[in-house]
């Protein structure tokens, strides 16, 4: 199985203010970005299902200048609210990192 993390240069989560979580996928090169983009792999639906959200709660913005995609969603609870598990929101990236992208494996050149 090929995962999204394995074809990314960086893959991070972080708050954008206390109420919103952003996930950035910076793919390893332009070729990989193009394959992922053309295959429409990173949709609100797919990312929402990784995070137990509904698709309408997730925005996905492609950013070709950095070979990147940005996903934006509300945090489960605001930063610092009782029950919060991650004040900075920096360790919420793993479901996206583990996303199965085997379907495009053949379209990519390996190092």
């Amino acid at each position, binding site marked *: 199985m090929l995962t999204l993390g394995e074809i990314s240069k960086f893959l991070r989560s972080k708050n954008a203010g206390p*109420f*919103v979580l952003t996930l950035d996928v910076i793919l390893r090169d332009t070729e990989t970005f193009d394959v992922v983009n053309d295959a429409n792999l990173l949709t609100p639906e797919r990312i929402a299902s990784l995070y137990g959200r509904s698709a309408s709660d997730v925005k996905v*913005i492609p950013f070709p200048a950095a070979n*990147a995609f940005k996903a934006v969603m509300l945090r*489960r609870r*605001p930063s610092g609210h009782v029950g919060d598990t991650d004040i*900075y929101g920096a*360790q919420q990236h793993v479901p996206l990192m583990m996303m199965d992208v085997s379907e495009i494996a053949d379209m990519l050149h390996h190092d």
Partner: protein
Amino acid sequence: MTEPFAVYSPAGVVGYAFPESSCERAMSFPLQAVGGDCGSTDPGPYYLGSGTSHVAKEAVERDLRLLLRGARRHGIPLILGSAGTAGGEPHLEWECDVLRDVARKEGLHFRMAVVHAEQNKDYLLEKLSDGKITPLYGAPGLDADTVRRCERIVGQMGAEPLIAALESGAEVIVAGRSCDTAVFAAAALRAGYPAGPVWHMAKILECGSAAAEPKSGSDGIIGRVDSEGFTVEPANLAMRCTVERIAAHSLYENPNPYEMREPSGTIDMRGCTFSQVDERMVRVEGSEMRPETYTIKLEGVELVGYRAITIVGIRDPILITQLSGLLERVRAMVADRNLASEDDYTITFHVYGVNGAMGIDEPITGATPHEVGLLMDVVAGTQDLANALSTLVRTYVQVSDFPGRLCIAGNLAYPFSPNGFEGGPVYQFAMHHVVEPKTPLEMFPIELMEV
């Protein structure tokens, strides 16, 4: 405007102790301004609520000494924003005290401006009833009661109050809560450099060397803006800025990589071109600033209780497979003892090794670690009640029986005596809204003084 306007940002946050050699290198260049971002909401609501700083006095003093000495030697303004992490009154006072102390020890004298950012509730209540306060994405509903309940509310000032302070001859500015960008944009805007490149450059500068390689938030950047665009290079010779990292920087902490909203308008980066000037320096052209209705971001927190915590390890494999059941039974036992109404407290269990970092979003279920770390978090109406409930919670978890139990002497491995710790007051963000002031200055009074 033929010469570039150079601004030095020593680090992502003043108080992270940037390398002295980086500062020396930066200060060896022609510079027109030094900016320092002293705060953020990143560390959570506690700092705004409690009036304390996230970074230590010793580190801030050290950083300010280097910056103040360098700025005074150059005869250029030093602008510090979001004082004391959260930029309210006590934070501002704290930062000013540290700065004045440094000035005294260094024998430095200058005109200083102090710009206040903590907001008056009556002013905000009037704005609320006038319909001039709107929520940002994700913000809770706002009514007059919420405003009154807030422990402290600050507004993020734009560049205008800082420019006004410079106009009044201030050589050092200590500002309360500010837009991170405004701190680095103000002096260049005042000197007439174009808004688009100035604000975009400021956005990169405010994170220090986070946009450089190898990655570090605790080192600095030098930005130079001219009439066509700007360049950025790291202060540290061992780091470099690349087109890739600078282009990617607008992704950082930003819900939209193409645009950034500042008080006076939106920075539009869609038309930007990035080029590698040399191995370490990147040039950016094409940033635009689109004027919008002037709005100020408000941050407010309310006190919700007091915290007491216990941190322990659990090693017993039989317990580990049944832990969630045991924890729920403990919850019910505490409720049954009636020390307080269930409305007056919360118990949160964080189970590290299972789903501590992600909670219900953890994708891996059914794996059984050989050890877990258990953090028991009690928040209650008073510190005494939190302490009492916390003691009960950990005692019950420690002694509770469970099917197949062998370890009947105790379920928990405590690393410390005392067994638990007071966490003090607990605050939560209650306001994340924007307000439309009549003028950019009305929310941010400026005091001038000679140091």
